[in-house]
C-alpha cells in the first residue's frame, strides 16, 4: 500500500508535517500520530530513493556496456 503513494506526495506531506510541528500547529494529542505518519513517510521516501537509484543505475550500466 505504501508503494502506491508517490515520492513527491510523500515528501510534501512530510514537509507539511515538519512545518506544522515547527509552527506549533500540532497539539500534543496529535503529535504521536503525526510523528508516526512522518516516520512512515520518511521510510517511503527512503525506499523510493533507493529503488529509483537502483533502477537508474541498472539502466545506465546496461546502456554504457552497450556503447
Amino acid at each position, binding site marked *: 500500500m505504501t508503494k502506491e503513494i508517490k*515520492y513527491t506526495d510523500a*515528501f510534501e506531506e512530510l514537509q507539511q508535517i*515538519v512545518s506544522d510541528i*515547527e509552527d*506549533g500547529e500540532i497539539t*500534543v494529542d496529535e503529535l504521536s500520530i503525526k510523528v508516526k505518519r512522518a516516520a512512515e513517510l520518511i521510510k517511503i521516501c*527512503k525506499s523510493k*530513493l533507493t529503488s529509483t537509484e537502483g533502477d537508474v543505475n541498472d539502466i*545506465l550500466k546496461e546502456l554504457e556496456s552497450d*556503447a
Partner: protein
Amino acid sequence: MAENQKIFTLKQVVSSIRKTIEERYQQLYWVKVEMHKLNRFASGHCFPELLQKEDGRIVAQISGTIWSHNYERINKRFIHLVKEPLKEDTTLLMQVKVSFHETYGMSLQIVDIDPNYALGELQRERQETLKKLTKEGLINANQHLNFPLLPKRVAVISAESSKGLSDFMNVIESNTWGYQFFTFLFPAYLQGDNASGSIIKQLDAIKRVKSHFDIVVIVRGGGGEVGLSCYNEYQLCKAIASFPLPILTGIGHATNLTVAEMVSFRNSITPTELGDFLIQAFHNFSTPVTNAIKSIKLHSKNKLTEARAQFGTSSQSFKHLTKQYLTNTNHILVQHGRKLKTEVRENLFYNRSKVLRLQEHSITSSKYRLRQEQETIERVKRNIPILYKQTLNKTAIELSQLEHSIKLMDPLNVLKRGYSITTINGKTIGENNSVELGDKITTKTSTFKLVSTITRKDND
C-alpha cells in the same frame, strides 16, 4: 530576249561579283553573331553557321569559316579566359572578312573571336538564369527543404570514373565510427555541352525513386575549371532548385560559384568536403545521443543526490523539531506550574496583607474614635465651670440690681435727703386719713421724730 544583248559566262559573272565584293569589302569588321553550329571538320577547319534572330525568327544567315590555325588560337584563348571552349549556340563578337569564292560562294571568314565578349555573354546568361529563378521563386527552394537528421541514403550523380566520386565514397565508406551509408550511382556527364541534359535526365530518374533516398549529391573532381558553364544553364539550375530532395554539390572548382551550386541545398568545394559534411551530420546526430547517456547519468545522480539531501534535511529537521516541540511543551508546562505557585503565593500574600491592613485600620480607627470621644468629654468638662460661673455671675448681677433698686426705694434714704414723713396714728395723711385741727401728728426726719399739734388746716 533581245538580239543585241551580251551574254556572259558564269565565271565572268561570278568573277565580276568577287571583284566587286573584294573592292567593296577590303577591311575587317567586328560583327555580333549567334554561332549556331561550329561544323568542325577533320581537317581542323570549321564552317560554323552564323545567324541573327529577332523575336525567334531568323532575320540574317550566312556561313562562316574558321581556318584550323585560327580556331586553335581562338579556342586556346577562350579556354584560358572564359574557362570554356568555343561553343555552339552562343552569341559571339567576331572579327570577320567578307569573302566570296567562285565555287563556295559568300562566307564570313572568321579571323578572331573576342573572348571577353563571350565571357560577358556567359555572365549575362548566368544573371539571366538567376533572375528567372528568382522570379519563379525557386532560387531558395531546394535550400528550404528539410535536411534529414541522418543523410543516410544518398543518390549520387557522378561519372563512374570520376576521381571526385572515389574521393567522396572513400570518405563516407571508410569512416571509423561505423556509420552506414547507402549510395546509388546515377552516372552522368559532369561538364561540357552534354552535361546539363545528362544531369537533368538522371535527376528525373531519381525523382521517380525518391522514396529510397534522403539526399542527392552531384560530385565531380579533378576536371579542372573548364566546361562548367553548363552549371549556369537555366534548365539544369531549375531542375536542381525545384528538386524534392536536398541536392548537395561538390563539383570541385575554384572560380566563381555557378548558379547550380548557388541554388543547391549546400555546396562543398570538393567531394571530400561533401563527404566530411555528411559524416559531420552523423556526428551531429551521434554526439547528443552519446552525450545524453553522460548527461542523464550526471543529472540523475544529481537529482537523486539533491533529493536525498533535501529529504535528509527534512528528516533531520523533523527529528530536531519534534524533540524541540516536546522540550518546549514541557517547558511551557513547567512554567505554568511555576506561575501557578507564584500566583497562588501572591494571592495569599495579597489577601493576608488586606486582612492585616484591616486589622491596622481597626486599631487606629478605634483608638482615634476613643480619643475623639475623650476630647469631647474633656471639652465638656472644661466648659462646665465656665458656664456655671457665668450663670452665677448673671444671677449675682440681677440680684445686686434688685438690691440697688430696693435701696433707692427705702424711705430712710428719702429722709436723708431732707424729706420727712408725717403720720397720724401711725398712718400717713391722705384722702382716707384726714387730720383735724388739734390732732397730734408725728413728723419723722432722718434724724428726729417730731410730734406736733395741728393748729390750722388749709385746703389745697
